[in-house]
């Protein structure tokens, strides 16, 4: 029997604000999973704390809603234990670029075969709209009537500087494209970073569907755009327009597990190996 979107629906009603980008994001994700034929019992998702994480009990998969900023290492632990599962770390921009920014850097460098899905609504939404490092600099935010006195982080350039095996950008205003991006990200063998520019009707009113139509362009529309080229990727990120699509891939990288020497010839997963193990062969070190 083939899968349908319904298989991923939980019985809980979403609690997001009307018009929230998380609706489109979840729909795109479920569509991608159906098309990749990954059943709810073959997927592990870690969820962060935030409006994004409030989706944890709205999708029927093996999941873990853990701590703020920690969905990446939690997902990595799950991935390392059982590679038969597809693993997605779901996370907000506050969690990803503030509380747990260390994890993003190391996950990309280790190149674990997981997908990191960043809900970038350009603010800490669940705590009612504080500035994140991707909020526009002068924009008045919670407790900051004159805006944030720090510089912004260009998250795209930052991610690109880590030389990821896959970096794509989608938007909640184009769920079909986003779904295709998520499919490619999951299929990529390595750490796939997907940044979703996301509508937040409450705290990021500047970013509206109308604005998106006028200002967001697709890499597909560019002639000769080659996402294997770091030069191409850098050029469009320097451009004043926002581009979506698969921005960059490095297909020369091995994934983490492929580089773990002692597990190379092992056919089982760590979850298959929990049994009493003989230690007699180790006692020679203690004579």
């Amino acid at each position, binding site marked *: 029997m083939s899968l349908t979107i319904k298989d991923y629906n939980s019985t809980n009603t979403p609690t997001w604000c009307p018009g929230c980008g998380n609706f489109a994001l979840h729909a795109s994700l479920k569509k991608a999973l159906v098309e990749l034929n990954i059943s709810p019992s073959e997927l*592990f998702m870690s969820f962060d704390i935030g409006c994004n994480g409030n989706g944890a009990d709205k999708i029927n998969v*093996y999941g*873990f809603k*853990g701590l703020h900023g920690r969905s990446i290492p939690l997902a*990595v632990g*799950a991935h390392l*234990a059982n590679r038969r599962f597809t693993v997605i770390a779901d996370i907000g921009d506050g969690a990803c670029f503030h509380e747990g920014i260390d994890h993003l850097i190391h996950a990309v460098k280790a190149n674990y075969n997981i997908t990191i899905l960043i809900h970038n609504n350009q603010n800490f939404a669940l705590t009612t709209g504080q500035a994140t490092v991707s909020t526009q600099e002068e924009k008045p935010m919670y407790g900051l009537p004159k805006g944030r006195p720090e510089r912004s982080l260009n998250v795209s350039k930052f991610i690109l500087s880590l030389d990821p095996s896959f970096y794509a950008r989608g938007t909640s205003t184009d769920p079909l494209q986003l779904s295709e991006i998520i499919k490619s990200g999951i299929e990529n063998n390595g750490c796939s970073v997907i940044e979703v520019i996301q509508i937040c009707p409450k705290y990021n009113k500047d970013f509206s569907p109308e604005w998106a139509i006028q200002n967001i362009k697709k890499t597909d529309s560019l002639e000769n755009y080659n996402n294997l080229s770091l030069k191409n990727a850098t050029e469009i990120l320097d451009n004043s327009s926002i581009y979506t699509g698969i921005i960059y891939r490095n297909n020369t990288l091995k994934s983490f597990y492929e580089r773990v020497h002692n597990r190379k010839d092992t056919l089982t997963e760590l979850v298959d190996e929990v049994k009493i*193990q003989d230690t007699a062969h180790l006692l020679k070190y203690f004579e």
Partner: protein
Amino acid sequence: MSKKRISIKFAGASGQGINTTGLLLAKALNKEGYKIFAYREYPSLITGGTASYQLDVSNSQINSSSRYSDILLCFTAESLDKYFDNIKENGILVYDFKNYSFSQEQETVLLKKNITKIYIDSKSIATDAGGTEIMSNVVMLGFLWKILTLETDILIDVVLDFLKNKNIDLEAEKNAILAGYNSPSYRPELSKKFDLPQTDMFSQKSLIMTGNHGISLGAVAGGVRAYYAYPMTPATSIFKFLGDTSEETKILVKQAENEITAVQMAMGSMYMGTRALVGTSGGGFDLMIETISCAGISETPLVIFLSQRTGAGTGLPTWTGAGDLNTAVKGGHGDFPRCVIATSDAISGYTLIQEAFNIAETYQIPVIVLSEKQISESLFSVKSLPKESEIMRGLSEGENRYELTESGISPRWVPSKEKKPYIHNSDEHTEDGTSTEESNDTLLMAEKRMRKLSLLEEHLPEPKLYGKSTPEVLFVGWGSVKNTVLDVIEDRNDISYLHYEYVHPLKTKTLEDFIEKGTRIVLLENNQTGQFGSLITQETGYIFKERLLKYDGRPFFVEDILDFLNN
């Protein structure tokens, strides 16, 4: 102290190979049939400072150090100055640096305590024998061997075997040992200054291992398949052993970017159904505490190994202590069940780490396994390892992951393609894992979780009593203090010791019986405030009238207990 024991200490600068020399001595004496206990002191720097390696030696099991050395062998003037006062009456001082002038005060002490001092030019002896100056260490070993009146075969075998893959001139090494052994500085009276017990050469040889080795072996035996850690003394050597042997065990050993990562990875791996261990020390443990609370509410099995060192903050990073009990038992926001287990030596580490995983999985709770630098890095003689514990995982299938049950334990199954998916949730949740903020849901789930603690408490054993049930004095303690107190009271039937391995939840029946009888009870702890005593007070209302606490970074030496008893 009626047990025959002597103590030998090497002292010098960090980076001078003190640790290796001590280890070689331990290995050789072990092969000679002795029981040993090896204790290291070293500063938190790589080269310089003063480091020492003390071996207490006996012909029966021995698990602690004397404050004093029968034989002190020094490689630097600083180390001689530092340990001079700790040479035993009638002891021997060997040193290998020229031009050291003993002060008038020191000379008086030497005379008064009848200590013999011997200068040996070990560097020249090494080079004359065709070796290099670094071989002065084995020259000293050779000389020591002569003093101990042992034959050189075993020592040479041990040294050459240890160095065989290290691109070192083994012939020169051997000659250096022999040259030390045959040094003219030796005088037969030296060998009469102490009483080295006889060994039975034909008895079964022990293994020698540290507490961290015990933990590592127990982890392997108990089906741990991943180890995640960030470097921090005194837990780091687990990373080394499991890493160095990972080609044999196929365990995944991963250095994480920080402690939060390590513990999150472990939690993710445990959720998926393997066994993963994390190891850390004080500050690293503090970073893990939010995750412990998360494991508590989400009912994810988790095992954290916490090896303690001295003090708050960075404290004395390479010295021992047992001051992290409060944070292990109480750290973390909110109320949730957990278990805290304290190891005391290599064998208890081996056994208890396996129990920790069984408890974590069966009760679906975080379990913290405590050690101390004194346990983690000291070498113990181990006759043989106990049989592996049966693996108990408490797995079962059901409709709802957080089903409200009478025992408090809900069905938990290993995620797999064939089974129903479920969510673990750090939000308060209903039976199917859905987030909730309702009053009734909250009460039901919080109470379900806490029922597991009562159940666990019922199943845990009472603390172990060493000695008779009507002693003059009853010591009560946990962790490494056991080793010292047992070495001291082995042959005294007037003193007993009550040892806690399971420090939380707390069993109090045995202790309360003693309290009721009016027994003289003394709390023994390696921390400043008597943290365990406070936990007991909290549970029983009993306030300790006598407390022997030590918190200067040093373990309890046998004399600390003896002095207390004699005063």
